[in-house]
Structure formats: structure tokens, C-alpha cells
């Protein structure tokens, strides 16, 4: 084996640097990527395109309906039962509306 001058100090340098490398590697565990994610990264960014003139609104395909009753708790947690929920009249939405805040006082 050939020895050079550099061999003598090499161990000193690596010993000093090793702990720092370990420390910087620690948090990467928290941001572990899903394996497939990097495969699709890079390349082009999205190039904004206009909406084609032929595009039809979704309202042409789906009809407007009253909101379906999603649960049987419209009378509160106590006193309600499943039969009430299945009542056809309960299709009329009875959601509790929140207090009115005008749209324009946001933003």
C-alpha cells in the first residue's frame, strides 16, 4: 500500500465532519416522499390554456335538486330516530343555517 502525506490527517477531518452529516440527515425522515412522486416531478410547468369554445356547463348534464338529507340528527342528538330520516318528507332539507354574514364583508 502506498502511503501519502494526506493519509495522516484524513482521519481527523472525517471524524470531525461525520457527526454533522448525521445531524443534517435526521429530519429528512419526516419528509419521506412517496416512491412514485419523484418519477413524475420536473419537466414542464403547466402552460395555461383557454377554455375551449365548445365547453358546456355542468348544469346541462346534472339537474338542480334540493339538498339530500345526510343524517337523522336534524332534531338534535336526542330524540331523533331512523324512521324520521327515512320519511319522504324529510327530503326537504332542514339544515341549520348559520348567522348571516354578507358576502361583501369578507376579503
Amino acid at each position, binding site marked *: 500500500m502506498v502511503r501519502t502525506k494526506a493519509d495522516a490527517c484524513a482521519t481527523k477531518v472525517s471524524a470531525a465532519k461525520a457527526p454533522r452529516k448525521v445531524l443534517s440527515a435526521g429530519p429528512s425522515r419526516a419528509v419521506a416522499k412517496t416512491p*412514485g412522486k419523484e418519477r413524475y416531478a420536473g419537466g*414542464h410547468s403547466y402552460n395555461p*390554456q383557454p377554455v375551449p369554445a365548445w365547453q358546456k356547463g355542468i348544469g346541462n348534464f346534472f339537474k338542480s335538486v334540493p*339538498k339530500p338529507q345526510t343524517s337523522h*340528527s336534524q332534531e338534535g*342528538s336526542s330524540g331523533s330516530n331512523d324512521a324520521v330520516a327515512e320519511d319522504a318528507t324529510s327530503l326537504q332539507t332542514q*339544515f341549520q343555517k*348559520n*348567522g348571516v354574514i354578507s358576502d361583501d364583508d369578507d376579503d
Partner: protein
Amino acid sequence: MFEARLVQGSILKKVLDAIKELLNEASWDCADSGIQLQAMDNAHVSLVSLNLRAEGFDKYRCDRDLIMGMNLKSMSTILKCAANDDIITVKAQDNADTVTFMFESPNQEKVSDYEMKLMNLDQEHLGIPDTDYNCVIKLPSGEFARICRDLSQFGENIVIACTKEGVKFSAAGDIGTANIKLAQTSSVDKEDDAVDIDLQEPVTLTFACQYLNLFTKATALSPRVSLSMSPDVPLVVEYPIGDMGNIRYFLAPKIEEDENN
């Protein structure tokens, strides 16, 4: 009283990222079965339908059905104040005109709460009929996002053609044409990487590139996406959200005009 606690709070942050560019505001319908949101985009071209089941939350309480109209930009601003590993709790009183978002660090040493004004939104609700689609394509969500992004360099339309051999995405424009073919994968080594096609009949449909790219904002929610297509009915782009629900986007295809006209 409404209260929903999500230990994996990043899910709610990703949900907002998936809808905030399509919708300015939306009503969150809270019931004891979970949270639902349905809204058309600002131009009424596409429809977003979000479903988060109560069982998917770490704690869920909803004494009375509640509609919470929210400005999604404001909500997104607040959720950006949460760290990715924060526990998020959403709270509202039955008749309140505000909603509270509470963020807790995993070690409980930092707790923040933000109160946001609710809005009274009068939004249309659309009935989505059960449809037997001619084809359902399941593929990696990252692959779909990459394809939509790449094809956006070419033109405003993306053609999706599905046969039993595979699916082809195409676009054409001033610089030329692009075709991306994905073969149906036979191996099931990595389920998330598979391309599965459930085909009743071959389908070729054209969609607006811009909307498909907006839908791909949900990519972070799921490693998989499914595309359900039939002629003359809206495409469904569905991202499952773990075992707690899903987000679905609906978009009408290009309808060929009646040849007799």
C-alpha cells in the same frame, strides 16, 4: 355543537389545495355521518364533490346538521398557518356565525386557534345520477398530473382514448402533436403504479386541458386516480382520500353536434 378533530391535519390542508383554485367559496355540509361539499366552479363548467366520512376523523361530533359557508381563500390562508404535522380541530356552535380552527403541535407545546367568519351562501345543489360508465381507468395520480401538464404545452384540448390495450392521451397545437400511451399493466408488484382498465366499450372523448390540470391539484391527496368515461356524459375524476372519503370532479366532454343540423 360541531367538532371534528384530524390528527393528520395535512389532509385538510391538501383538500383545500385541491379545491381553492376552482372555487372561491363553498358550503360545508356537516352532519353526523360526516362532511360533504358540493359546488360548481366559478364558471359553472365543472362540479366538485367532496365526501369526508365521520369515521375518518379522530374525533367527530355533530349535534345538529350544519351548513358552513366559507370563503375558501380565507380558509386556505388560515390552514397555511398550520404545520404539516399539526393536529387540526374544526369547531362551531350550532347557531354561530364563525368557525374556529385549532392547530396543535404533535407534542402539544404549541396550540393556535383561528376564528373565521362564515358566509350565507345560496348555492345550487346538483343531483348526480348513478351511471354505468363504458370505461374506468385507474392510474397513478402523479402520472395523470404529469400527462396533463405535458399536454398543456400543446393545446386547449386533451383527447382520452381508451381501448382494451390501454389508454392514449393526445393533444395538438401550433408546435405539433403529442401522444402518450399507457398500456394496461399486467403485473401487480406495485399496486400504486398499476394502470387498470375496466372496459365495457372503447371510448374516445375530448376534454378541456385547463380543467383537467385544475383537477390534478388533488394529486397530493392520493397515489391513485380513477377516470370514468362514457360518451356524452361528464367525465369523473376521482381521488380517494385514504379510507375517509374521496374528492370527485365532473367535467363535460366535447359533444359532437348532431350531423343532421
